Protein backbone atom coordinates (compact mmCIF):
# COMPACT_ATOMS: atom_id res chain seq x y z
CA UNK A 1 0.00 0.00 0.00
CA UNK A 2 2.65 2.54 0.93
CA UNK A 3 5.25 3.54 -1.64
CA UNK A 4 3.96 0.96 -4.05
CA UNK A 5 6.23 2.05 -6.84
CA UNK A 6 9.40 1.52 -4.84
CA UNK A 7 8.76 -1.96 -3.53
CA UNK A 8 11.02 -4.60 -4.92
CA UNK A 9 9.70 -7.87 -6.29
CA UNK A 10 11.33 -10.88 -4.68
CA UNK A 11 9.32 -13.59 -6.42
CA UNK A 12 7.79 -13.34 -9.88
CA UNK A 13 5.38 -16.01 -10.98
CA UNK A 14 4.71 -16.16 -14.69
CA UNK A 15 2.17 -18.45 -16.31
CA UNK A 16 2.38 -21.06 -13.59
CA UNK A 17 0.24 -24.05 -14.42
CA UNK A 18 -0.14 -27.02 -12.10
CA UNK A 19 -2.23 -29.98 -13.09
CA UNK A 20 -2.77 -33.62 -12.41
CA UNK A 21 -4.05 -36.06 -15.00
CA UNK A 22 -7.56 -35.48 -13.68
CA UNK A 23 -7.71 -31.75 -13.06
CA UNK A 24 -6.11 -28.38 -13.53
CA UNK A 25 -5.24 -26.88 -10.13
CA UNK A 26 -3.57 -23.64 -11.17
CA UNK A 27 -4.35 -22.42 -14.65
CA UNK A 28 -1.47 -20.22 -15.75
CA UNK A 29 -1.24 -17.74 -12.90
CA UNK A 30 0.88 -14.58 -12.76
CA UNK A 31 1.77 -13.02 -9.44
CA UNK A 32 4.45 -10.86 -7.88
CA UNK A 33 5.57 -11.20 -4.29
CA UNK A 34 7.00 -8.03 -2.77
CA UNK A 35 9.96 -7.86 -0.44
CA UNK A 36 9.41 -7.04 3.24
CA UNK A 37 5.65 -7.08 2.83
CA UNK A 38 2.85 -9.40 3.80
CA UNK A 39 1.59 -10.89 0.55
CA UNK A 40 -1.72 -12.60 1.13
CA UNK A 41 -3.38 -15.18 -1.07
CA UNK A 42 -7.03 -15.71 -0.26
CA UNK A 43 -9.60 -17.92 -1.85
CA UNK A 44 -12.13 -20.62 -1.16
CA UNK A 45 -11.04 -24.13 -0.13
CA UNK A 46 -9.73 -26.17 -3.01
CA UNK A 47 -8.81 -23.15 -5.10
CA UNK A 48 -5.14 -24.13 -5.24
CA UNK A 49 -3.68 -21.85 -2.57
CA UNK A 50 -1.69 -24.48 -0.70
CA UNK A 51 -0.53 -26.08 -3.94
CA UNK A 52 0.80 -22.71 -5.03
CA UNK A 53 2.85 -22.39 -1.82
CA UNK A 54 4.23 -25.88 -2.19
CA UNK A 55 5.29 -25.15 -5.74
CA UNK A 56 7.27 -22.08 -4.65
CA UNK A 57 9.68 -24.07 -2.46
CA UNK A 58 9.47 -27.09 -4.79
CA UNK A 59 7.86 -29.36 -2.23
CA UNK A 60 5.66 -30.41 -5.13
CA UNK A 61 8.71 -32.19 -6.57
CA UNK A 62 7.83 -34.90 -4.06
CA UNK A 63 4.54 -35.53 -5.79
CA UNK A 64 5.21 -36.88 -9.25
CA UNK A 65 1.51 -36.85 -10.11
CA UNK A 66 1.63 -33.02 -10.25
CA UNK A 67 2.70 -31.55 -13.53
CA UNK A 68 4.19 -28.07 -13.13
CA UNK A 69 4.85 -25.69 -16.02
CA UNK A 70 5.51 -21.95 -16.29
CA UNK A 71 8.18 -19.94 -14.50
CA UNK A 72 8.83 -18.85 -10.97
CA UNK A 73 11.71 -16.44 -10.47
CA UNK A 74 13.15 -16.06 -7.00
CA UNK A 75 15.46 -13.06 -6.86
CA UNK A 76 15.49 -13.03 -10.68
CA UNK A 77 16.60 -16.65 -10.95
CA UNK A 78 14.34 -19.51 -11.98
CA UNK A 79 13.61 -21.79 -9.03
CA UNK A 80 14.31 -24.76 -11.28
CA UNK A 81 17.93 -23.65 -11.37
CA UNK A 82 18.19 -23.82 -7.58
CA UNK A 83 19.09 -26.92 -5.67
CA UNK A 84 15.71 -27.71 -4.02
CA UNK A 85 17.38 -28.17 -0.63
CA UNK A 86 18.97 -24.73 -0.93
CA UNK A 87 15.74 -23.18 -2.14
CA UNK A 88 13.78 -24.53 0.81
CA UNK A 89 16.23 -22.92 3.18
CA UNK A 90 15.64 -19.58 1.48
CA UNK A 91 11.86 -19.97 1.33
CA UNK A 92 10.56 -21.34 4.63
CA UNK A 93 7.11 -22.85 5.10
CA UNK A 94 4.91 -22.92 8.19
CA UNK A 95 2.00 -25.33 8.03
CA UNK A 96 -1.64 -25.16 8.98
CA UNK A 97 -1.30 -27.77 11.69
CA UNK A 98 1.62 -27.16 14.03
CA UNK A 99 4.08 -29.99 13.41
CA UNK A 100 6.91 -29.83 15.95
CA UNK A 101 9.16 -32.87 15.92
CA UNK A 102 9.05 -35.13 18.99
CA UNK A 103 12.19 -33.68 20.54
CA UNK A 104 13.07 -30.79 22.86
CA UNK A 105 12.23 -27.19 22.03
CA UNK A 106 15.91 -26.45 21.59
CA UNK A 107 16.44 -29.42 19.30
CA UNK A 108 13.41 -28.50 17.23
CA UNK A 109 14.82 -25.06 16.52
CA UNK A 110 18.37 -26.33 16.05
CA UNK A 111 17.22 -29.08 13.67
CA UNK A 112 17.56 -27.09 10.47
CA UNK A 113 21.06 -25.93 11.44
CA UNK A 114 22.19 -29.41 12.39
CA UNK A 115 21.12 -31.03 9.15
CA UNK A 116 23.03 -28.36 7.27
CA UNK A 117 26.06 -30.17 8.62
CA UNK A 118 27.56 -26.97 9.98
CA UNK A 119 29.72 -27.66 13.00
CA UNK A 120 28.73 -24.80 15.24
CA UNK A 121 30.12 -24.19 18.70
CA UNK A 122 27.61 -24.52 21.51
CA UNK A 123 27.57 -20.79 22.16
CA UNK A 124 27.00 -19.98 18.50
CA UNK A 125 24.20 -22.53 18.26
CA UNK A 126 22.64 -21.15 21.46
CA UNK A 127 22.79 -17.66 20.04
CA UNK A 128 21.10 -18.62 16.79
CA UNK A 129 18.43 -20.68 18.53
CA UNK A 130 17.68 -17.91 21.00
CA UNK A 131 17.48 -15.31 18.27
CA UNK A 132 15.01 -17.46 16.32
CA UNK A 133 12.92 -17.93 19.45
CA UNK A 134 13.00 -14.18 20.04
CA UNK A 135 11.95 -13.49 16.45
CA UNK A 136 9.05 -15.91 16.94
CA UNK A 137 8.12 -14.10 20.16
CA UNK A 138 8.62 -17.27 22.16
CA UNK A 139 11.87 -16.64 23.99
CA UNK A 140 10.43 -14.79 26.98
CA UNK A 141 7.79 -17.46 27.54
CA UNK A 142 10.08 -20.44 27.27
CA UNK A 143 13.59 -19.41 28.28
CA UNK A 144 14.92 -21.81 30.89
CA UNK A 145 12.57 -24.53 29.62
CA UNK A 146 14.21 -25.28 26.32
CA UNK A 147 14.75 -28.93 27.22
CA UNK A 148 11.00 -29.45 27.44
CA UNK A 149 9.46 -31.50 24.59
CA UNK A 150 8.27 -29.31 21.73
CA UNK A 151 5.18 -31.47 21.46
CA UNK A 152 4.18 -30.64 25.06
CA UNK A 153 3.52 -26.96 24.28
CA UNK A 154 0.09 -25.45 23.65
CA UNK A 155 -1.15 -25.25 20.05
CA UNK A 156 -0.27 -21.58 19.68
CA UNK A 157 3.18 -22.06 21.18
CA UNK A 158 3.77 -25.08 18.93
CA UNK A 159 2.92 -22.95 15.93
CA UNK A 160 5.36 -20.23 17.02
CA UNK A 161 7.96 -22.95 17.65
CA UNK A 162 7.50 -24.06 14.03
CA UNK A 163 7.97 -20.44 12.97
CA UNK A 164 11.17 -20.24 15.05
CA UNK A 165 12.34 -23.49 13.47
CA UNK A 166 11.94 -21.96 10.02
CA UNK A 167 13.43 -18.60 11.07
CA UNK A 168 16.64 -20.08 12.43
CA UNK A 169 17.74 -20.69 8.85
CA UNK A 170 17.27 -16.94 8.18
CA UNK A 171 15.12 -17.49 5.09
CA UNK A 172 14.42 -14.55 2.83
CA UNK A 173 10.78 -15.54 2.47
CA UNK A 174 8.52 -17.15 5.04
CA UNK A 175 5.32 -18.75 3.78
CA UNK A 176 2.37 -19.43 6.07
CA UNK A 177 -0.28 -21.96 5.06
CA UNK A 178 -3.44 -21.13 7.05
CA UNK A 179 -1.34 -20.58 10.18
CA UNK A 180 -4.21 -19.65 12.50
CA UNK A 181 -6.98 -22.00 11.45
CA UNK A 182 -6.09 -24.59 14.11
CA UNK A 183 -5.66 -21.99 16.88
CA UNK A 184 -7.86 -20.34 19.51
CA UNK A 185 -8.46 -16.54 19.33
CA UNK A 186 -5.73 -15.60 21.83
CA UNK A 187 -3.11 -17.75 20.13
CA UNK A 188 -4.30 -16.36 16.82
CA UNK A 189 -3.84 -12.78 18.07
CA UNK A 190 -0.21 -13.52 18.86
CA UNK A 191 0.40 -14.88 15.39
CA UNK A 192 -1.16 -11.74 13.92
CA UNK A 193 1.24 -9.54 15.91
CA UNK A 194 4.09 -11.80 14.96
CA UNK A 195 3.38 -11.67 11.23
CA UNK A 196 3.28 -7.88 11.41
CA UNK A 197 6.65 -7.83 13.17
CA UNK A 198 8.24 -10.40 10.88
CA UNK A 199 7.82 -8.37 7.73
CA UNK A 200 10.43 -5.92 8.98
CA UNK A 201 13.07 -8.59 8.46
CA UNK A 202 11.45 -11.10 6.12
CA UNK A 203 9.07 -11.34 3.20
CA UNK A 204 5.85 -12.99 4.22
CA UNK A 205 3.48 -14.97 2.00
CA UNK A 206 0.26 -15.78 3.78
CA UNK A 207 -2.33 -18.21 2.52
CA UNK A 208 -5.64 -18.01 4.32
CA UNK A 209 -9.35 -17.88 3.93
CA UNK A 210 -9.63 -15.89 7.16
CA UNK A 211 -10.58 -12.39 6.07
CA UNK A 212 -10.19 -10.82 9.53
CA UNK A 213 -6.59 -12.00 9.57
CA UNK A 214 -6.13 -10.64 6.07
CA UNK A 215 -7.52 -7.24 7.02
CA UNK A 216 -5.16 -7.04 9.97
CA UNK A 217 -1.89 -7.97 8.34
CA UNK A 218 -2.05 -7.93 4.57
CA UNK A 219 -0.15 -5.43 2.43
CA UNK A 220 -0.97 -7.07 -0.88
CA UNK A 221 -4.03 -9.25 -1.19
CA UNK A 222 -4.68 -11.63 -4.07
CA UNK A 223 -7.87 -13.58 -4.62
CA UNK A 224 -7.51 -16.93 -6.30
CA UNK A 225 -10.62 -18.49 -7.72
CA UNK A 226 -10.85 -21.77 -9.58
CA UNK A 227 -7.13 -21.81 -10.27
CA UNK A 228 -6.79 -18.20 -11.42
CA UNK A 229 -6.10 -14.89 -9.76
CA UNK A 230 -9.17 -12.80 -10.28
CA UNK A 231 -8.27 -9.81 -8.14
CA UNK A 232 -5.13 -8.24 -6.75
CA UNK A 233 -4.77 -5.16 -4.66
CA UNK A 234 -3.13 -3.46 -1.73
CA UNK A 235 -4.77 -3.92 1.65
CA UNK A 236 -7.47 -1.28 1.40
CA UNK A 237 -7.96 -1.38 -2.37
CA UNK A 238 -8.77 -5.04 -2.27
CA UNK A 239 -11.55 -4.76 0.24
CA UNK A 240 -13.19 -1.94 -1.68
CA UNK A 241 -12.97 -3.75 -4.99
CA UNK A 242 -15.99 -3.77 -7.25
CA UNK A 243 -15.00 -7.09 -8.83
CA UNK A 244 -17.85 -9.56 -8.58
CA UNK A 245 -15.79 -12.49 -7.28
CA UNK A 246 -14.23 -10.32 -4.55
CA UNK A 247 -17.62 -9.15 -3.37
CA UNK A 248 -18.94 -12.71 -3.43
CA UNK A 249 -15.93 -14.05 -1.58
CA UNK A 250 -15.97 -11.29 1.04
CA UNK A 251 -19.66 -11.72 1.72
CA UNK A 252 -19.21 -15.48 2.11
CA UNK A 253 -16.02 -15.23 4.15
CA UNK A 254 -17.39 -12.64 6.59
Amino acid at each position, binding site marked *: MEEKGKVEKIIEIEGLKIETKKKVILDGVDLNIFRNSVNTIVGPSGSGKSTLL*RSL*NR*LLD*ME*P*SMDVSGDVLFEKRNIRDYDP*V*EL*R*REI*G*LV*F*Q*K*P*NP*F*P*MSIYDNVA*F*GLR*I*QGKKLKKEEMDKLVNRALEDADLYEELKGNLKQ*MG*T*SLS*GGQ*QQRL*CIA*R*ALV*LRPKVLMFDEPTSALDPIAKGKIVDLIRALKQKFTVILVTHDMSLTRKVSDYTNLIYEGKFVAKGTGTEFFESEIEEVKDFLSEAD
Partner: protein
Amino acid sequence: MKVTNKIFNFFTFLMAIVPAVALISIFAFVFQESLPLWKFSGFSFFTTYLWNPGFQYQPPHLVHGVLAPQGAQFGLDLFLLGTLSTSALAILIAFPISFLITLNVELYLPSKIKKIMVSMIELFAGIPSVVYGLWGIIVLEPILFRSVEPWMAQHLSFIPGFKGEIYSGAGLIASGIILSFMIIPIVTSVIVNSFDTVPKEVKEGLFSLGATKWEVGKYLTTRYSRASTVGGTLLGLGRALGETMAVLMVSGAIVNTLPTSFYSATNTMAAAITSLLDSALTDSTRMDLAALAALAIVLMVISLGVSIVGRKIAGRGALRGYESD
Protein backbone atom coordinates in the same frame (compact mmCIF):
# COMPACT_ATOMS: atom_id res chain seq x y z
CA MET B 1 -32.73 -65.88 20.78
CA LYS B 2 -31.26 -65.65 24.20
CA VAL B 3 -30.17 -69.28 24.17
CA THR B 4 -28.56 -68.99 20.74
CA ASN B 5 -26.83 -65.85 21.94
CA LYS B 6 -25.45 -67.67 24.93
CA ILE B 7 -24.26 -70.58 22.81
CA PHE B 8 -22.64 -68.17 20.39
CA ASN B 9 -20.94 -66.28 23.23
CA PHE B 10 -19.69 -69.52 24.72
CA PHE B 11 -18.16 -70.67 21.44
CA THR B 12 -16.55 -67.35 20.67
CA PHE B 13 -15.08 -67.37 24.17
CA LEU B 14 -13.83 -70.90 23.60
CA MET B 15 -12.22 -69.96 20.31
CA ALA B 16 -10.72 -66.83 21.84
CA ILE B 17 -8.90 -68.73 24.55
CA VAL B 18 -7.61 -71.48 22.23
CA PRO B 19 -4.33 -69.70 21.39
CA ALA B 20 -3.56 -68.94 25.02
CA VAL B 21 -4.43 -72.46 26.17
CA ALA B 22 -2.43 -73.96 23.30
CA LEU B 23 0.64 -71.88 24.12
CA ILE B 24 0.51 -72.71 27.81
CA SER B 25 -0.13 -76.40 27.27
CA ILE B 26 2.64 -76.76 24.68
CA PHE B 27 5.02 -75.08 27.08
CA ALA B 28 3.82 -77.28 29.94
CA PHE B 29 4.15 -80.55 27.98
CA VAL B 30 7.59 -79.71 26.68
CA PHE B 31 8.69 -78.60 30.12
CA GLN B 32 7.39 -81.80 31.69
CA GLU B 33 9.24 -83.84 29.08
CA SER B 34 12.44 -81.95 29.96
CA LEU B 35 12.22 -82.49 33.73
CA PRO B 36 14.56 -85.55 33.88
CA LEU B 37 17.25 -83.56 32.11
CA TRP B 38 17.24 -80.79 34.71
CA LYS B 39 17.63 -83.40 37.43
CA PHE B 40 20.36 -85.18 35.49
CA SER B 41 22.41 -82.20 34.28
CA GLY B 42 21.39 -79.36 36.54
CA PHE B 43 23.18 -76.13 35.83
CA SER B 44 25.88 -77.88 33.80
CA PHE B 45 23.41 -77.88 30.89
CA PHE B 46 24.28 -74.21 30.52
CA THR B 47 28.02 -74.49 31.04
CA THR B 48 29.21 -77.08 28.54
CA TYR B 49 29.11 -77.36 24.78
CA LEU B 50 29.40 -81.15 24.69
CA TRP B 51 26.40 -83.15 23.58
CA ASN B 52 26.69 -86.88 23.96
CA PRO B 53 23.73 -89.25 23.89
CA GLY B 54 25.73 -91.91 25.78
CA PHE B 55 26.14 -95.62 25.10
CA GLN B 56 22.82 -97.08 24.07
CA TYR B 57 24.10 -100.68 24.16
CA GLN B 58 25.21 -100.57 27.79
CA PRO B 59 22.74 -100.73 30.66
CA PRO B 60 21.62 -97.29 31.80
CA HIS B 61 22.62 -96.01 35.22
CA LEU B 62 20.95 -93.89 37.85
CA VAL B 63 22.17 -90.29 38.21
CA HIS B 64 20.53 -87.88 40.70
CA GLY B 65 17.56 -90.22 40.86
CA VAL B 66 16.95 -90.46 37.10
CA LEU B 67 17.91 -93.12 34.58
CA ALA B 68 20.34 -92.08 31.85
CA PRO B 69 22.54 -93.86 29.32
CA GLN B 70 26.11 -94.26 30.47
CA GLY B 71 28.44 -91.57 29.22
CA ALA B 72 25.57 -89.22 28.44
CA GLN B 73 26.32 -85.51 28.69
CA PHE B 74 24.26 -82.59 27.52
CA GLY B 75 25.20 -78.94 27.17
CA LEU B 76 23.60 -76.24 25.05
CA ASP B 77 26.50 -73.82 24.63
CA LEU B 78 27.44 -74.76 21.08
CA PHE B 79 23.85 -74.56 19.91
CA LEU B 80 23.18 -71.38 21.84
CA LEU B 81 26.30 -69.78 20.39
CA GLY B 82 25.29 -70.91 16.89
CA THR B 83 21.74 -69.63 17.30
CA LEU B 84 22.82 -66.23 18.58
CA SER B 85 25.66 -65.77 16.11
CA THR B 86 23.70 -66.79 12.99
CA SER B 87 20.77 -64.59 14.05
CA ALA B 88 23.04 -61.66 14.87
CA LEU B 89 24.73 -61.96 11.47
CA ALA B 90 21.32 -62.19 9.81
CA ILE B 91 20.21 -58.96 11.49
CA LEU B 92 23.50 -57.26 10.61
CA ILE B 93 22.91 -58.08 6.95
CA ALA B 94 19.13 -57.65 6.90
CA PHE B 95 18.80 -54.34 8.71
CA PRO B 96 20.82 -52.12 6.36
CA ILE B 97 19.24 -53.79 3.32
CA SER B 98 15.73 -53.31 4.72
CA PHE B 99 16.59 -49.72 5.58
CA LEU B 100 17.78 -48.99 2.05
CA ILE B 101 14.77 -50.75 0.51
CA THR B 102 12.48 -48.62 2.67
CA LEU B 103 14.21 -45.38 1.67
CA ASN B 104 14.00 -46.32 -1.97
CA VAL B 105 10.41 -47.44 -1.83
CA GLU B 106 9.24 -44.44 0.20
CA LEU B 107 11.26 -41.56 -1.13
CA TYR B 108 12.79 -42.36 -4.47
CA LEU B 109 10.54 -44.68 -6.44
CA PRO B 110 7.34 -43.59 -8.19
CA SER B 111 4.22 -44.81 -6.39
CA LYS B 112 3.35 -47.39 -9.06
CA ILE B 113 6.72 -49.11 -8.76
CA LYS B 114 6.43 -48.80 -4.99
CA LYS B 115 3.30 -50.95 -5.03
CA ILE B 116 4.99 -53.61 -7.13
CA MET B 117 8.07 -53.57 -4.91
CA VAL B 118 6.06 -53.89 -1.69
CA SER B 119 4.08 -56.85 -2.99
CA MET B 120 7.28 -58.50 -4.23
CA ILE B 121 8.78 -58.14 -0.76
CA GLU B 122 5.69 -59.64 0.80
CA LEU B 123 5.85 -62.49 -1.71
CA PHE B 124 9.37 -63.24 -0.53
CA ALA B 125 8.05 -63.90 2.95
CA GLY B 126 5.94 -66.74 1.55
CA ILE B 127 8.78 -68.81 0.08
CA PRO B 128 9.13 -72.08 2.06
CA SER B 129 12.33 -72.21 4.06
CA VAL B 130 13.38 -75.52 2.52
CA VAL B 131 13.62 -73.72 -0.83
CA TYR B 132 15.98 -71.17 0.69
CA GLY B 133 17.96 -74.06 2.16
CA LEU B 134 18.23 -75.82 -1.17
CA TRP B 135 19.28 -72.62 -2.87
CA GLY B 136 21.86 -72.20 -0.12
CA ILE B 137 23.35 -75.62 -0.77
CA ILE B 138 23.32 -75.44 -4.56
CA VAL B 139 24.24 -71.81 -5.16
CA LEU B 140 25.45 -70.04 -2.04
CA GLU B 141 27.77 -72.59 -0.48
CA PRO B 142 29.90 -73.14 -3.62
CA ILE B 143 30.26 -69.37 -4.08
CA LEU B 144 31.30 -68.93 -0.46
CA PHE B 145 33.64 -71.89 -0.59
CA ARG B 146 35.36 -71.04 -3.85
CA SER B 147 35.43 -67.27 -3.90
CA VAL B 148 34.15 -65.31 -0.95
CA GLU B 149 35.64 -67.12 2.02
CA PRO B 150 39.11 -67.59 0.47
CA TRP B 151 39.13 -63.87 -0.33
CA MET B 152 38.10 -63.01 3.22
CA ALA B 153 40.68 -65.34 4.70
CA GLN B 154 43.34 -63.76 2.58
CA HIS B 155 42.47 -60.09 2.98
CA LEU B 156 40.72 -59.83 6.32
CA SER B 157 42.80 -62.24 8.36
CA PHE B 158 44.04 -59.39 10.56
CA ILE B 159 40.55 -59.23 12.09
CA PRO B 160 39.99 -61.84 14.82
CA GLY B 161 37.81 -64.68 13.55
CA PHE B 162 38.58 -64.10 9.89
CA LYS B 163 41.72 -66.19 9.96
CA GLY B 164 41.16 -69.90 9.58
CA GLU B 165 40.67 -72.89 7.42
CA ILE B 166 37.82 -73.06 4.93
CA TYR B 167 35.86 -76.27 5.06
CA SER B 168 32.87 -76.38 2.74
CA GLY B 169 31.07 -73.07 2.63
CA ALA B 170 28.48 -74.38 5.07
CA GLY B 171 28.49 -72.64 8.43
CA LEU B 172 27.93 -69.34 10.13
CA ILE B 173 28.24 -67.13 7.06
CA ALA B 174 25.94 -69.23 4.87
CA SER B 175 23.39 -69.50 7.69
CA GLY B 176 23.50 -65.77 8.40
CA ILE B 177 22.99 -64.92 4.73
CA ILE B 178 20.10 -67.36 4.27
CA LEU B 179 18.45 -66.17 7.47
CA SER B 180 18.84 -62.55 6.41
CA PHE B 181 16.97 -63.32 3.17
CA MET B 182 14.18 -64.83 5.21
CA ILE B 183 13.80 -61.90 7.60
CA ILE B 184 14.30 -58.99 5.18
CA PRO B 185 10.59 -59.12 4.18
CA ILE B 186 9.48 -58.95 7.82
CA VAL B 187 11.81 -56.15 8.82
CA THR B 188 11.14 -54.20 5.63
CA SER B 189 7.37 -54.41 5.80
CA VAL B 190 7.28 -53.20 9.42
CA ILE B 191 9.54 -50.23 8.63
CA VAL B 192 7.66 -49.41 5.41
CA ASN B 193 4.33 -49.53 7.23
CA SER B 194 5.53 -47.26 10.00
CA PHE B 195 6.92 -44.88 7.39
CA ASP B 196 3.50 -44.74 5.78
CA THR B 197 1.89 -43.73 9.07
CA VAL B 198 4.16 -40.71 9.56
CA PRO B 199 1.88 -37.67 9.12
CA LYS B 200 2.39 -35.82 5.86
CA GLU B 201 2.99 -32.59 7.80
CA VAL B 202 6.03 -34.12 9.47
CA LYS B 203 7.55 -35.30 6.20
CA GLU B 204 6.82 -31.96 4.53
CA GLY B 205 8.09 -30.16 7.63
CA LEU B 206 11.41 -31.94 7.31
CA PHE B 207 11.71 -31.25 3.60
CA SER B 208 10.75 -27.62 3.99
CA LEU B 209 13.62 -27.15 6.45
CA GLY B 210 15.93 -28.15 3.69
CA ALA B 211 16.44 -31.78 4.65
CA THR B 212 17.55 -34.09 1.86
CA LYS B 213 15.71 -37.36 1.16
CA TRP B 214 18.51 -39.24 2.87
CA GLU B 215 18.22 -37.02 5.97
CA VAL B 216 14.44 -37.36 6.03
CA GLY B 217 14.66 -41.16 5.75
CA LYS B 218 17.37 -41.39 8.36
CA TYR B 219 15.51 -39.16 10.79
CA LEU B 220 12.16 -40.88 10.35
CA THR B 221 13.45 -44.43 10.70
CA THR B 222 16.04 -43.90 13.40
CA ARG B 223 14.32 -41.23 15.47
CA TYR B 224 10.71 -40.53 14.68
CA SER B 225 9.64 -44.14 14.07
CA ARG B 226 12.47 -45.66 16.06
CA ALA B 227 10.00 -47.81 17.98
CA SER B 228 8.76 -49.46 14.79
CA THR B 229 12.24 -49.85 13.39
CA VAL B 230 13.48 -51.57 16.54
CA GLY B 231 10.26 -53.56 16.86
CA GLY B 232 10.41 -54.78 13.27
CA THR B 233 14.04 -55.77 13.66
CA LEU B 234 13.25 -57.73 16.82
CA LEU B 235 10.36 -59.49 15.06
CA GLY B 236 12.82 -60.50 12.36
CA LEU B 237 15.26 -61.64 15.04
CA GLY B 238 12.52 -63.76 16.59
CA ARG B 239 11.99 -65.45 13.24
CA ALA B 240 15.72 -66.00 12.73
CA LEU B 241 16.17 -67.55 16.16
CA GLY B 242 13.54 -70.18 15.54
CA GLU B 243 14.21 -70.92 11.88
CA THR B 244 15.06 -74.59 11.45
CA MET B 245 15.10 -76.20 8.06
CA ALA B 246 17.09 -73.73 6.01
CA VAL B 247 19.72 -73.38 8.71
CA LEU B 248 19.92 -77.14 9.19
CA MET B 249 20.72 -77.42 5.49
CA VAL B 250 23.47 -74.81 5.34
CA SER B 251 24.96 -74.70 8.85
CA GLY B 252 27.05 -77.85 8.63
CA ALA B 253 25.08 -79.18 11.64
CA ILE B 254 28.16 -79.76 13.74
CA VAL B 255 28.18 -81.27 17.25
CA ASN B 256 30.87 -81.26 19.97
CA THR B 257 33.25 -78.93 18.14
CA LEU B 258 33.37 -75.25 18.93
CA PRO B 259 33.81 -72.99 15.91
CA THR B 260 37.31 -71.58 15.52
CA SER B 261 36.57 -68.96 12.86
CA PHE B 262 33.71 -67.48 10.87
CA TYR B 263 34.26 -70.21 8.28
CA SER B 264 33.62 -73.05 10.74
CA ALA B 265 30.50 -75.15 10.58
CA THR B 266 27.93 -74.31 13.21
CA ASN B 267 24.63 -75.53 14.59
CA THR B 268 21.58 -73.90 16.13
CA MET B 269 19.12 -75.01 18.78
CA ALA B 270 16.29 -75.39 16.31
CA ALA B 271 18.40 -77.29 13.79
CA ALA B 272 19.87 -79.52 16.51
CA ILE B 273 16.44 -80.51 17.78
CA THR B 274 15.49 -81.66 14.29
CA SER B 275 18.72 -83.44 13.44
CA LEU B 276 19.19 -85.18 16.80
CA LEU B 277 15.58 -86.22 17.27
CA ASP B 278 15.81 -89.43 15.30
CA SER B 279 18.49 -90.97 17.48
CA ALA B 280 16.96 -89.53 20.65
CA LEU B 281 13.81 -91.52 20.03
CA THR B 282 15.80 -94.75 20.26
CA ASP B 283 16.98 -93.99 23.79
CA SER B 284 14.98 -96.21 26.15
CA THR B 285 15.60 -93.92 29.16
CA ARG B 286 14.11 -90.96 27.27
CA MET B 287 16.95 -88.84 28.61
CA ASP B 288 18.00 -87.84 25.08
CA LEU B 289 14.49 -86.68 24.43
CA ALA B 290 14.44 -84.79 27.72
CA ALA B 291 17.63 -83.01 26.66
CA LEU B 292 16.11 -81.94 23.34
CA ALA B 293 12.98 -80.81 25.20
CA ALA B 294 15.19 -78.69 27.47
CA LEU B 295 16.79 -77.20 24.38
CA ALA B 296 13.32 -76.46 23.05
CA ILE B 297 12.35 -74.73 26.31
CA VAL B 298 15.37 -72.45 26.18
CA LEU B 299 14.72 -71.67 22.50
CA MET B 300 11.08 -70.97 23.24
CA VAL B 301 11.89 -68.62 26.10
CA ILE B 302 14.43 -66.69 24.02
CA SER B 303 12.25 -66.32 20.91
CA LEU B 304 9.09 -65.61 22.88
CA GLY B 305 10.97 -62.97 24.83
CA VAL B 306 12.28 -61.35 21.66
CA SER B 307 8.84 -61.48 20.01
CA ILE B 308 7.10 -59.96 23.03
CA VAL B 309 9.63 -57.15 23.31
CA GLY B 310 9.45 -56.63 19.53
CA ARG B 311 5.67 -56.47 19.48
CA LYS B 312 5.58 -54.17 22.47
CA ILE B 313 8.03 -51.75 20.91
CA ALA B 314 6.45 -51.94 17.44
CA GLY B 315 2.99 -51.48 18.93
CA ARG B 316 3.95 -48.18 20.48
CA GLY B 317 3.76 -46.98 16.93
CA ALA B 318 5.09 -44.14 14.91
CA LEU B 319 3.03 -41.41 16.51
CA ARG B 320 4.85 -41.56 19.82
CA GLY B 321 5.41 -38.06 21.09
CA TYR B 322 3.29 -36.44 18.44
CA GLU B 323 0.28 -35.74 20.63
CA SER B 324 -0.44 -32.05 20.83
CA ASP B 325 -1.22 -31.96 24.54
